[in-house]
């Protein structure tokens, strides 16, 4: 029998200097001293998720989550950068995500837990770091879902004003939540279908616009507006192509072969998104006047309405596909937020009742409903700018913490497939950290009027940890157990 026993030393200081796990030791009843495999197995039996997903489901969840980025927002980057500035900005964003996903691949095969970023940061930066990364991820996904709901409402009011857009948006959102509660497999199948439709829409866009473009549009006028400042300003717009794809890692516990499927779906998804984004931006830029394109809300629909204005069937069909695309993203975001909240709740950071399961399919239901309610409330109470700010800030904060955590524990010789020393080289990651810091500063500068939201939110997050979360950590949770067994405990063989 193997028993894990504390070595008597206190945790290393966490990210902000407090002593991690101190409270957990006092709170757990007896299990604080001896965390046996039996206890862990019992815990996992009560809190384990069904392994029902394969690479195709993960791929659909990853790509599906980011499809909205192809249909909206990216055109905002055109205004400041110019054609070649746009290409440079796209390449920088791709490079960042390539290196970041390489880090995620390394982490995800070693720590295949529902916590995802929380689990990874927990290893390197202690419990507060893990908690902060987890809440940042949850906030990112909850706010992104709210953001897409805002976009849907706007879309309905612009394109189908005769329909009750708000009710429809909420109705479909509730339907997706219900599907998610029924079973993750069912939700995965729905996601494959939705993602297929969304990608078909992009192919339809390519077919509709490929022979209408003018190559000389690219070389007319300045190739890069505003120099490097223009490129920097364009970066957030192209982040929408990839933002949220990291949600794949949070399906690790529900994946049949996480060691194979997580890296495969992450990297395949990244490559697919990059190629599609190049195509979308290229056809967008060469098909219509960029000065108009950067001002519209739904660029692909706008482009098709300009170049295929006679084809009413195409426009009507594409309009319908757009609606499906938004809900594809929402379904992926529901998955991400629910699994992150589930992991935080299971580990005691959030109230434990949230991670309660439906017995039939082992699906947690409150972690789907509660973040969903938050998204719906934010959608109707928050402004677009505030929600964008909170989403991007939370995402970049999480990226920052994951990279720092990786740098901190990279000496532990993790055995990982798809190894790339170049992409995970400390210098490369430090460069990325620099980019993220610049990105955060740029974000705050651009949305300065909404900074108070971030301050209040994260102050609340910190207070909550200090007064409640930090005192209720459950060491039996796999993310906690992995961190503790790796860093803070010694293993004793007991015969």
């Amino acid at each position: 029998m193997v028993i894990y026993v504390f070595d008597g030393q206190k945790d290393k200081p966490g990210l902000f200097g407090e002593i991690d796990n101190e409270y957990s030791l006092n709170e757990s009843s007896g299990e604080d001293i001896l965390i046996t495999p039996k206890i862990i197995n019992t815990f996992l039996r009560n809190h384990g998720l069904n392994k029902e997903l394969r690479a195709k489901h993960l791929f659909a969840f990853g790509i599906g989550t980011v499809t909205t980025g192809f249909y909206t927002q990216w055109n905002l980057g055109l205004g400041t950068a110019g054609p070649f500035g746009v290409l440079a900005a796209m390449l920088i964003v791709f490079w960042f995500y390539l290196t970041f996903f390489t880090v995620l691949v390394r982490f995800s095969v070693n720590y295949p837990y529902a916590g995802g970023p929380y689990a990874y940061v927990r290893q390197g930066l202690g419990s507060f770091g893990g908690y902060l990364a987890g809440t940042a991820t949850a906030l990112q996904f909850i706010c992104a879902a709210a953001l897409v709901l805002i976009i849907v409402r706007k879309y309905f009011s612009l394109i189908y004003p005769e329909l009750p857009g708000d009710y429809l948006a909420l109705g479909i959102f509730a339907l997706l939540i219900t599907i998610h509660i029924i079973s993750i497999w069912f939700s995965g199948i729905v996601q494959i279908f939705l993602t297929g439709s969304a990608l078909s829409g992009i192919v339809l866009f390519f077919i509709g616009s490929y022979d209408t473009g003018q190559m000389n549009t690219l070389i007319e006028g300045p190739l890069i507006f505003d120099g490097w400042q223009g490129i920097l300003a364009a970066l957030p717009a192209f982040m929408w192509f990839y933002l949220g794809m990291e949600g794949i890692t949070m399906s690790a516990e529900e994946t049949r072969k996480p060691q194979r499927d997580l890296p495969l779906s992450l990297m395949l998804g990244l490559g697919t998104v990059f190629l599609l984004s190049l195509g979308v931006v290229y056809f967008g830029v060469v098909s219509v006047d960029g000065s108009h394109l950067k001002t519209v809300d739904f660029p692909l629909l706008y482009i098709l309405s300009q170049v295929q204005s006679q084809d009413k069937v195409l426009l009507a069909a594409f309009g319908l596909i757009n609606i499906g695309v938004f809900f594809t993203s929402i379904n992926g975001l529901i998955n991400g937020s629910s699994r992150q909240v589930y992991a935080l709740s299971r580990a005691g950071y959030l109230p434990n009742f949230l991670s309660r399961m439906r017995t039939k399919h082992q699906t947690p239901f409150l972690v789907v409903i509660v973040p969903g309610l938050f998204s719906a409330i934010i959608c109707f109470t928050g402004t677009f700018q505030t929600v964008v700010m909170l989403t991007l800030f939370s995402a970049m904060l999480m990226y920052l913490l994951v990279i720092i955590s990786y740098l901190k524990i990279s000496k532990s010789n993790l055995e990982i497939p798809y190894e790339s020393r170049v992409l995970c080289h400390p210098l490369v990651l430090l460069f990325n950290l620099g980019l993220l810091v610049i990105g955060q500063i740029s974000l705050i500068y651009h949305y300065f009027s909404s900074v108070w939201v971030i301050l209040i939110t994260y102050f609340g997050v910190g207070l909550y940890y200090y007064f409640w979360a930090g005192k209720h950590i459950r060491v039996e949770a796999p993310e906690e157990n992995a961190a503790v067994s790796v860093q803070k405990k010694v293993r004793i063989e007991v015969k």
Partner: protein
Amino acid sequence: MDFDKRLENQIEKDIQHLRRLGYAQELYRTIGGFSNFAITFSVISILSGLMTLYGYGLGLVGPFSIWTWAIVGLFQLMVALALGDIASIYPLAGGVYKWTGRLGNPHVGWFCGCFSLLGWLACTAGIQFGMGIFLTAYLGFELSPLNILMITAIIIIAHSIINIFGIRLVAKITDFSVGVHIIGAAVLVGLLLVFGRNNPLEYILHVGNVPQGMLLINFIQALLMSAWTLTAFDASTNVSEESINPSKVVPWGMVFAVVCSWVLGSLLLLSLNLSLPGLRETLDSGFPAALYVIRTALGTTIYKFITIFILLAQFTAGLSSQTVSIRIIYAFSRDKGLPFSHLWKNVSPKYSTPVYSVLLISGATLLLCVFAPSLHIITSLSTIGLYFAYAITMAVAISERRKIQLNHGPFHLGRVRLPVQIISLLWTIFITVIMVVPPIGQGGKVFLLATVFITFYYFAAMRKQLGAEFKYTLE
């Protein structure tokens, strides 16, 4: 007991069953229920068969041709049930050829297998030739015989390369094919019904300009469109030795595939007929009728988009059909039932595929495409071969019904077995006859030639062998 353990036990049971039937387990058992359904569904391929022959049916009885689908669907469901009843007893690669050989005698089995093989060869050629026509039109080339033949040759080569080098890819493509068919058909039907509707519902009773007294004959002739599409569902039986729990999943796979294809095909034909811009205009367009309807009703961009799905469906159907034909050749030559059997059963140690069988099938389908004057002849020949093989199987099943009754598998028809078998027999004979006898039948001469050759070879080489060695191999 956990899932993996149950799976292992089931595979062990399947291996024991195969051993009792006289064969060792040589192929990997990895195909589950869905993949089994997928193979049959993608070989039936409504997006391939119906779209290819839509113009043929339209030319004979106008939009009324949709009713051929209703009739054929009903009877083919009977045939699928009757064949499933036998498949559950004999889950062996080779399908109808093995069943008749075991239920009746090796001589009947061999004849049945030859006609089945002929049907499958022509089926593969028909799908590839049909795709050749569609791809030529899609790429904007002139629809001349040479252009079509060259494109068809490229398709055949592509299929052969995949079958030789990427046998694992074949399984993935087959699974993918189900998605392509369901999504493609659903999107096409939805778009046509919502945006492309030109005619009222009563239009499906319109028969076009059929001469006086010719309606019945034309309608029977138009049965080819549906009869060719909704056939070849014994595809999944040929992978029985690679399936998990084949006695159950193979029959159900066939029945589900027929029902799904029947429903989706009905919707597809309905939507095409309701979107028809004009019967004469469509037939005189010089373009494949189904593509013309889509292009006119939905515009050029959506036509280009949706045709990608149709071409993908045709490609995957052709690939599946070629794979099944290769399995039949392999099963046949394993029992020395073909000239130069030692060559065809040879499996490449490098690629784990019967390379010579692939080359034989590719050469034969290409020859068929070169020498057949039209697509109707190829599809007629395929229909004759497959239906005649079913007819032989049904006749043997009726005569040996006690054997089936005593050994029935988990999928069985119980008391309705005999009526279903009799209906299936009469139906398959009816289809074979109308495809052979003029003026309706167009494949009579080729079929006669093939029958003479098969009979000659039987008397020259097989009769003795079937009496001794072949019988021994089977039992």
